[in-house]
């Protein structure tokens, strides 16, 4: 008897492409949230495949905290140019200057939470009715219950107790005026799937993900990189180490890991052996047990 096996990566790919096409079909002006991190790169790669040989019918939106690793911005600009898509940048700095967002104070101040303000402002300014995000359900427990098509009210809020049931692959993207959707094509991917798929498809990733030498120091259990935004305090002794990043977010809250993995094959081996999740190195999730849920309710990605 003929068998029809489909590998797990092919299944995930097909599912994501289906969701991306559904987004294009159900919304007037969808955008793709592009951070320059591996998840958004894989999502953009899938978007390019979904609509080939045409261009993906999405504007790319980068919510920029201003606290980036320079490598991320370089990569972003190169990537967007290659795909030939339109990039819109929403700047947290602009929101702060306009007075719609206020910079956190205190020793662990971060602009991470402020991204929600800038995101909602960008959505309104550009008239986006849906934002594609690279969020995965395995990342964090509040995300484990997130839908592919996640409805947000006119204030951009997520109501976890009142989500639309999602069955089969029938997605309900209908909404009232002023409301919008966050859409997560990578919902069912794990960190490992992302790395494996990047390897399989030979997707180019920023150099930050691979072992390199960098000035780092420890703070609250995270290995932070010294930069113009992150300055060691008294008693924090920076040293040069061989590290890489498992996630790339705002430079102020993204921790590095000591690693010698310099290729995707080595990264895959390392992640397989790792006993800590990738978010274990992100201080934004450690603020409280429900930190992610609270941020999402306020309109976070």
């Amino acid at each position, binding site marked *: 008897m003929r068998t*029809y096996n489909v590998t797990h990566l092919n299944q995930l790919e097909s599912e994501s492409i289906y969701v991306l096409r559904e987004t294009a079909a159900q919304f007037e002006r969808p955008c793709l949230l592009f951070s320059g991190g591996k998840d958004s790169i894989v999502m953009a790669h899938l978007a390019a495949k979904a609509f080939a040989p045409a261009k993906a019918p999405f504007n790319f939106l980068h919510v920029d905290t201003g606290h980036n690793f320079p490598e991320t911005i370089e990569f972003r600009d190169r990537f967007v140019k290659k795909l030939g898509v339109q990039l819109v940048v929403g700047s947290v700095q602009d929101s702060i200057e306009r007075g719609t967002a206020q910079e956190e104070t205190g020793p662990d101040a971060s602009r991470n939470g402020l991204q929600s303000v800038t995101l909602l402002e960008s959505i309104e300014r550009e008239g986006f009715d849906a934002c594609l995000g690279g969020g995965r359900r395995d990342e964090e427990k509040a995300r*484990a219950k997130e839908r592919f098509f996640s409805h947000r009210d006119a204030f951009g809020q997520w109501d976890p107790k009142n989500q639309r049931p999602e069955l089969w692959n029938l997605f309900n993207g209908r909404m009232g005026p002023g409301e919008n959707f966050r859409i997560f094509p990578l919902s069912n991917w794990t960190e490992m799937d992302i790395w494996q798929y990047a390897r399989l498809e030979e997707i180019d990733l920023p150099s930050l993900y691979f072992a390199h030498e960098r000035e780092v120091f420890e703070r609250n259990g995270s290995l932070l990189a010294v930069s113009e935004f992150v300055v060691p305090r008294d008693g924090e002794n920076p040293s040069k180490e061989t590290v890489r990043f498992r996630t790339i977010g705002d430079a102020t809250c993204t921790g590095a890991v000591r690693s010698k993995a310099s290729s995707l094959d080595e990264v895959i081996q390392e992640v397989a052996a790792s006993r800590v999740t990738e978010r274990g190195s992100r201080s934004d999730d450690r603020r409280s047990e429900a930190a992610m849920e609270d941020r999402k309710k306020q309109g976070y990605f």
Partner: protein
Amino acid sequence: MTEDKNYLEMDLLRFTTAGSVDDGKSTLVGRLFYDTKSIFEDQLEAIERSSKQHGDENVNLALLTDGLRAEREQGITIDVAYRYFATPKRKFIIADTPGHIQYTRNMVTGASTANLALILVDARKGVIEQTKRHAFIADLLGIKHVAVCINKMDLVDYEQSPYEQILKDFGDFASRLDHVTELTFVPISALKGDNVVERSENMPWYKGPSLLYHLETVYVGSDANHVDARFPVQWVIRPHSDEHHDFRGFAGRVAGGVFKPGDEVTVLPSGFSTRIKKILMADKELEEAYNPLSVTITLEDEIDVSRGDMLVKPNNQPNVDQNLDAMLCWFSSSKKLVAGTKYLLRHTSKDVQAIVTEVLYKVDVNTLRKSEDDRELGMNDIGRVTLRVSQPLFFDTYRRNRNTGSFILADAFTNETLAAGMMR
């Protein structure tokens, strides 16, 4: 290095678990994660901290899945949680759903995408109402593989007789399940780990595999329909570039059957026929496409095709009708089903308006009895209805094809998803 490339061959199993806290469902999921090294240290530390805060003596593995603040506060699972783990053979997606009767809609949701249902039975209690409810819902949603885990075997001294009794009781009842083609019973102790990952030495009378081995090897490759070719068009690709000026590709996910270049296809609803020129995945040409692959199909002739249309084979066409007969599961907590109300219906890539013309009967999910006296469908109710839609749909029975036999109803005013339907 070859061993490291296993993942290029790995496949995927989606399964659903239903049960209440007492069944040890969370303990079982926790055990599978723990023993396959899918729990990470920081996650374990986080739930240890949290368990202490909530005053639990043992590490409460339920906290791994119950992530929302309200769930932790109330100690209940509100919603379907999706969880992931992998072994070198397979990747697993668990749709973890609460088992109480008021969560029927969550069980239905979790079951809708699953290949296998894992049903937990307490060895001391045997087959109870909840067991039957879970089995009924798994069957209704077209799940072909059911694994019954007879849990807490340690509490019945690993004796064979409670296991045999459950086999018998469940077997009597399982003859009424239509879709289920494979029923497996595994005696386990989720707490002690017996027969979960490794075969247990405490139950020499049991000759079957461990639960994980079963999950790793159960064959689901032929579950999808590979007979009736169905391709709902999702999106039309028309590049506005000089290079691809004449390109017109029809993008979608194969919902059934097998398509090959050269195949004759008929477009519904127009009825025009032509041949498939190419099947594309980005810049790669494929020799064939089947469910669940997302592809782009180009045709030999230029004919009008748009979203909501369906490509089929001329000699194997779906039902085309405006009158439908379906099982309906009602989800909305705010509105009950009202016959005659205009709803929005989504089926494959098509949106139409729909009116429920009649509720034929309601099913009691505990006794599985059909009631013609009570025909009111509210939240968590399941019933058989007839509908009339504003345009003909191209469909198969749900039993024959999950993709072309399923639909959802949404409210025309609030846009809320109200119900899920399965064509009969």
